[in-house]
């Protein structure tokens, strides 16, 4: 073995042991005094008096034990197998688990620092009054949430995956209490888990319904110990959403055109998709609402035009300032009825300084606001005249 190689090896071993040391330091569950911790552990006490119950979400479940709860995510990412996390109230001894849970990831809760992989988490966390827990986001530029924005500007939040790929070393160095994924897999996650940083999957985007997605606020409640706030907030959201949907269902459905075209191919949400459900619940109709499958379908413009080109309303997510921008992007848009009558609505009213759109970010947490916008567009007679739009704006003629 050459001398240089030996030096490199020695360095590598030193680094590995020091990293292992780091993770060993983080592992003990009886952390120093922090709020919400058990100081005087009694195995007979129920340390989760506020329990979340789920009504709409189908992709996760929570089960409670005295000093820990188990969060199970059925599909942590598209094609992923179910995974369980053991959330242990801090101050309690690590539970001795058997069977499937024996090797499960343990997270000490409430967490003091959280790395968030998707901007859709942020509105939920802010809603729970826990914005101060967020210390890292995947891409700070994409954040529009005002509370998190302030923290980013103050330097309290770092970016750990600005280009889409997790920078493992940044995360290892900061050592957050938990990293919450955007519901996609990343080769870096197993490495982080090995190093003692809990990685919890948030796959709310795999929920079929808007209310199901919003209910993931209860996952953040489980992580931050805010079950009662989450329960109240979610119930209010669900009640408003259902009330709006009932109102809209009493009207005659309005034809809408959804999606836009690129390179001659029109991306159309199916009826089973999140966007499709929202439009159906808002009292809208379009020919592909009966299609199954949660993914968007790529259609040719001829079919879309022949079957839906006459719709009086068009809902888009393109940031067009005026209808003319649509036509200059593709002159064939000019043949659509909604373009001719100027009834084009864009979900780009609330765009943050870095280009992040609250429609994606807050719309997931607050489907009631999103549905309110859609009902007001589709059935203006149902909305009060002084209603302010949250996410949508009418594209200027």
């Amino acid at each position, binding site marked *: 073995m050459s001398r240089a190689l030996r030096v490199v090896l020695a360095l590598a071993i030193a680094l590995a042991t020091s990293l292992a040391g780091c993770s060993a330091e983080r592992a003990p569950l009886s952390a120093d005094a922090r709020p919400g911790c058990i100081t005087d552990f009694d195995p007979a006490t129920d340390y989760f008096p506020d329990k979340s119950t789920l009504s709409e979400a189908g992709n996760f479940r929570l089960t409670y034990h005295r000093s820990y709860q188990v969060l199970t995510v059925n599909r942590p990412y598209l094609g992923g197998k179910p995974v369980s996390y053991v959330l242990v109230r801090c101050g309690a001894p690590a539970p001795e688990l058997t069977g499937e849970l024996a090797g499960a990831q343990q997270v000490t809760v409430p967490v003091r620092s959280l790395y968030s992989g998707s901007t859709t988490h942020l509105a939920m966390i802010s809603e729970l009054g826990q914005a101060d827990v967020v210390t890292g986001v995947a891409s700070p530029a994409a954040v529009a949430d005002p509370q998190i924005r302030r923290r980013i500007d103050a330097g309290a939040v770092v970016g750990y995956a600005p280009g889409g790929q997790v920078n493992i070393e940044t995360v290892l160095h900061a050592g957050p209490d938990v990293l919450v994924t955007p519901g996609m897999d990343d080769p870096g996650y197993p490495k982080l888990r090995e190093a003692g940083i809990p990685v919890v999957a948030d796959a709310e985007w795999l929920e079929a319904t808007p209310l199901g997605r919003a209910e993931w606020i209860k996952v953040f409640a489980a992580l931050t110990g805010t079950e009662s706030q989450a329960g109240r907030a979610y119930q209010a959201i669900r009640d408003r959403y259902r009330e709006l949907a009932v109102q809209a269902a009493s009207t005659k459905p309005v034809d809408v055109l959804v999606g836009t075209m*690129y390179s001659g191919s029109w991306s159309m949400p199916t009826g089973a998709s999140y966007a499709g459900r929202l439009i159906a619940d808002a009292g809208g109709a379009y020919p592909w609402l009966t299609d199954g499958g949660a993914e968007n379908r790529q259609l*040719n413009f*001829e079919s879309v*035009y022949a079957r839906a080109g006459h719709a009086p309303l068009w809902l888009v997510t393109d940031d067009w300032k005026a209808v003319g921008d649509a036509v200059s*992007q593709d002159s*064939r848009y000019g043949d659509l009825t909604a373009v001719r009558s100027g009834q084009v609505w864009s979900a780009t009213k609330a*765009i943050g300084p870095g*280009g992040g759109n609250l429609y994606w970010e807050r719309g997931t947490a607050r489907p009631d606001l999103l549905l309110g916008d859609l009902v007001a567009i589709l059935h203006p007679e149902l909305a009060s005249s002084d209603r302010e739009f949250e996410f949508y704006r009418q594209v200027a003629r």
Partner: protein
Amino acid sequence: MKARTALVLAGLALAVVVLAVLGLALGPVRVPLADTVRVLLGSDASDPRWQVIVANMRLPRVLTALAAGAALGVAGLQLQTLFRNTLADPYILGVSSGASLGVALVMLLGGAAGAGFTAGMAGASRAGATIAAALGAAAMLTLVLTLSRWTRSAATLLLIGVMLGAASTALVSLAMVYADPQRVQQFLLWGLGSFAGTGWDDLRLLLPLVAVGLAAAALTIRPLNALLLGESYAATMGINVRRARVVTVGSASLLAGVTTAFCGPIAFIGLVVPHVARIAVGTSDHRAVVPAVTLLGAVAALACGIVSQVPGSNVVIPINAVTALVGAPVVITVLLRARRGSGMP
């Protein structure tokens, strides 16, 4: 002109007309034939929707396929002769990658640097993307050609082209990492290739540019014939080799770049059409092969365009899937048969 060449060209011209008519008559939506004819003759259709579908969707699609096919066929032929390599084509030599890089820079990073969060390739930047694609194509081709001075080996040169293509693809992925996901999605769709992405606005740019490129390519017929026998031979024939290279590279970049900007990087047509055309006319003489590749390129693109817009169906099949899946077996058969029959290289 030999009788065989005349016959082949007449046959190809007929095929172009037939396929163009089919392209207008066939589409995902069933439009009555009488209405199609009425719209084309300038009178009103029985349903205003047919008017829009035939005049604003199918006609641009057919014209785009026509222009793109001719452009790619001619560019492929020029490059094969210039590099004296039968595997050369805009795609393999990295010209398409260069064009993609140009488009990626405009499309993925363009708006991010500017003040506005403009949606993807909006009207104004469409022209920008076209220019960027042509410049990217020209830069790549010039680089390959410059490097060709240091090597006599065609295989090395081809390898260099492939490497440069890989390098520009790497730059594209770098740009994608830092771009808005919605734009990345658009860029990926563009990369699948389509003749259906163009409207009349785009054709006002696409058609004249392809016409200029084809006219310039026509000027290279004589020098290319001389270059078939080597550069020193061409020089003794009184050909200004340097000028011939510049014009060839220029027109090939324009043709490939413009096509790539509007239709995405389209594989296969530029590589294969020249081979089939040479077999069909039975000669390598560019006076016969250039018109043949123009027509055959259009035929191939029109046919692929019809298949990609599956009649009676909602869905779209990307052009690149059609060119490769439908075209490859056909061409392999043609090549093998021709080799067995005539012993042509």
